[in-house]
């Protein structure tokens, strides 16, 4: 399984997380759904769908929390029959990043993913460039940026 990153500083923390948590698929993205790194995906279309859905879930739950006058949820977990899906966010020098991880219940667990997600947040915070939040993706550039990112993520 390959691990690839659009921004190189995300690669090492992600590789470590995948190894320790035993995650099967992982996406690191901005809260707008722009993918920064991925592990385990074999098709660009899956990355695009997962990124869009993950960002939408985070946006929805952030809004629920806001309406309840609560701070945003730290993490979300969905336990399936064979797999678990974990969504968590981290504030880095590049702004808020969302991590989506799919793990196999035979080889990993929510506890392990949570434990090593804590480590991942620390590693991403330490590794992220401090020059500021990444620029907003403009509508005109969106398709080109997406295409560039996918090319990088799939080694094209």
């Amino acid at each position, binding site marked *: 399984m390959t691990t690839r990153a659009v921004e190189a500083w995300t690669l090492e923390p992600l590789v470590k997380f995948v190894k320790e948590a035993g995650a099967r698929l992982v996406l690191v993205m901005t809260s707008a759904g722009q993918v920064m790194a991925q592990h385990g995906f074999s098709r660009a279309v899956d990355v695009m769908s997962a990124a869009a859905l993950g960002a939408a879930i985070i946006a929805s739950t952030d809004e629920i929390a806001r309406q309840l006058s609560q701070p945003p949820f730290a993490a979300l977990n969905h336990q399936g029959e064979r797999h678990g899906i974990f969504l968590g966010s981290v504030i880095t020098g590049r702004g808020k990043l969302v991590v989506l991880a799919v793990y196999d219940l035979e080889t990993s667990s*929510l*506890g392990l993913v949570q434990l090593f997600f804590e480590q991942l947040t620390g590693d991403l915070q330490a590794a992220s460039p401090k020059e500021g939040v990444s620029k907003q993706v403009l509508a005109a550039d969106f398709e080109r940026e997406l295409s560039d990112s996918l090319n990088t993520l799939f080694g094209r």
Partner: protein
Amino acid sequence: MTAPAAYGPALDLVTRVRGVRGAMLVSGEDGIVVAEQLMEGIKGGAVAALAASLAARLRRAIDAAGVGPTLFWHLQCDKGGLLVVPTPSGVLIVAVAEPDVNVGLVRLELLRAAEAVG
């Protein structure tokens, strides 16, 4: 499994043994904390996740070896150890202990706690 009110007394059985630094109930499937009584400095979440992960691997190997379901296991380390009794409901009773703890006594109390928890 019994009600959460029984968890405290069950953990008391284990933590009163000299050399035990903490005791926990852990969800074996998820690796998350159900109840805990820990000394300062012990990370409950880490203990739960790692104990459950090791328990799952050991369970599969021990089943394959044909020695039946695991009743008790002890990870021995030079600065202490983890002692674990799985319950039929899938909860793990976990003790974090110092190296010179009376293993036989901790095992007995873990088994009693497992009976209390169900």
